[in-house]
């Protein structure tokens, strides 16, 4: 867009002056339309958030009031009280933190491990592993979720536990449903929620690291694992930041798998989904009538990731320029 730069030299004759005018005019028009476009789209994005905030703090009586559009006449915290109660907020927050966010963090490390293996070593099957990781991106989790949930009900590692159980004569396959293991185990092996994409991002990043980093470590007598922990991980902060933001956010927002794997002790996303029926059960207000409370629930749900984003936002944006996800 910076094709026409202002020149500092004074205009000499009329044709130069005319050209300069044309340059400036184009420049002005380009930036005018750019800002107009950005502001329009930005408005669409921000409008929804403002509405959530506006509704969350609005008393019930003013929701159907056509004279109140943006700013309520009085503020109330009543909606939050109802929403916290209906969502069982603090218990659900605990579940989300302990199960979803924790497994998101585990994934940040487990995915970098395999990505390091395929990015920096040449061994047979390397390309196959990379291909499989890409295939994992392409196949939606819905495909495997149902057999997974059935398997988790009688968890077995390649039939070994079942075999032992047959010998002993007792079924020792544990039921992992409704526990955190349904999320922790896949994450631990690097095949959790959208891990294919994370392996891809890491691999692209590791490919770009200079070879000298590792060579220096090897000469100093480090084995590959210590090299990975002491040298590679500390220098891949940028990629880790990108991946951890994506990972935490997607785990936080996950709904489908949580519903399948959990039958009680639901995380926040499921509780948010059920908020209207929960309100109806406790207070008898019909769903839709308690729109303020639902919006308060949405507000409480998106607040923690938003705060995280606001803190990390600058680094995240800088990291997008540097990670080279596509490379």
């Amino acid at each position, binding site marked *: 867009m910076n094709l026409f730069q202002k020149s500092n030299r004074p205009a000499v004759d009329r044709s130069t002056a005319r050209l300069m005018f044309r340059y400036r005019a184009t420049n002005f028009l380009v930036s005018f339309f750019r800002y107009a476009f*950005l502001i329009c789209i930005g408005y669409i994005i921000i409008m929804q958030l403002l509405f959530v905030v506006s509704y969350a703090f609005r008393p019930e009586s003013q929701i159907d009031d056509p004279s109140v559009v943006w700013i309520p006449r009085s503020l109330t915290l009543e909606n939050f009280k109802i929403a916290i109660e209906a969502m069982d907020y603090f218990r659900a927050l605990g579940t989300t933190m302990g199960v979803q966010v924790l497994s998101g963090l585990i994934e940040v490390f487990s995915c970098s491990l395999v990505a390091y293996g395929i990015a920096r070593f040449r061994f047979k099957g390397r390309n196959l592993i990379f291909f499989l990781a890409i295939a994992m991106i392409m196949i939606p989790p819905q495909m495997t979720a149902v057999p997974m949930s059935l398997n988790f009900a009688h968890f077995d590692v390649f039939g070994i536990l079942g075999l032992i159980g047959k010998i002993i004569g007792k079924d020792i396959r544990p039921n992992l449903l409704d526990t955190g293991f349904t999320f922790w185990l896949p994450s631990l092996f690097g095949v959790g929620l959208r891990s294919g994409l994370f392996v891809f991002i890491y691999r692209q990043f590791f490919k770009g690291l200079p070879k000298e980093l590792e060579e220096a470590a090897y000469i100093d007598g480090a084995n590959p694992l210590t090299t990975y922990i002491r040298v590679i991980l500390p220098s891949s902060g940028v990629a880790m930041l990108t991946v951890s933001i994506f990972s935490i956010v997607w785990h936080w927002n996950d709904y489908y798998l949580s519903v399948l794997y959990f039958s009680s002790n639901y995380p926040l996303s499921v509780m948010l989904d059920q908020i209207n029926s929960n309100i109806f059960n406790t207070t008898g207000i019909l769903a839709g009538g308690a*729109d303020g409370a639902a919006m308060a629930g949405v507000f409480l749900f998106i607040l923690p990731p938003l705060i995280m984003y606001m803190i990390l936002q600058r680094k995240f944006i800088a990291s997008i320029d540097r990670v080279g996800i596509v490379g």
Partner: protein
Amino acid sequence: MKFLQRRPSVERKKNRNGFLFCLPWCIGFLLFFFIPLIQSIAFSFSKVSVTTSGFELDFVGLENYYYILFQSPEYVDNLLDTLTTFGQQIPIIFVLSLIIAMILNSKFKGRTFFRSLYFIPVIIATGVVMRYLSGSVALQSMQGSAGDLETAYTGTMVNFQQFFEQMGIPESVSSMVFRYVNDIFNLIWQCGVHIILFISGLQAIPQSLYEVSKVEGATKWEEFWFVTIPCLGNTIVLVIVYSVIEFCVSTGNAVIQQAYTVLQKQQIYHISAAMLWLYFLIVACMIGLIFYLFNRLCLKKWQ
């Protein structure tokens, strides 16, 4: 001599460690991805009955597929519905996010602010929140009695439908435009990750190419088609794949919704698996077709 050559070199030995790095992932892949995937294919060809010690499969052949295609209510309708939405939304999202990414990638004042604003949907755009946001009374109250969004943004002062008609634009075109306008909130909120992918792709294009094209006297338009787009090749593929996945996963998807209802409310695992597989096969064919056309029409031309 031969013996010596066969001995693994230090380099070889080190490379073997690479496999150790991948070993946990390979186990996990088999255990948590590959086996369930095979099971899910098996489910779609059989009858699943859950017992106390796991589940049992009775092979029934193509019966499940026959059922969902010819006997089940709504499945075919849902499928067509989903595929049409898919065909309508993906190109728009693609173009929109490319434009936004190109603007956000250029240098101007307030770039960081706009970037952090435009990435917000990445953080909070999910099925559950989106359902509350787009179905909220807030939006509906804005839409007014007409019930569509164009009045929400412009007020009821201007009747655009009539305006377009008077300008001589056929109704089919204007109604299509209105459909997109009504859906704009949805579309823009889906763009977040695509914008990120495009920006990182744009960053990877060497600046020297633009300088060369400037020296050669290319216009902006030519620069876009002969420098930006060819260099974005990989990104474009990635974005298309990503949007397809995102679309598959989204809870607003009618087929996924139906498969989910069958699964959760009625506990019929095999029908649900068959529904998902049929849908996925069609989508996979579509991706394959897109890639083929992309390779054939675009990449060949540039080389």
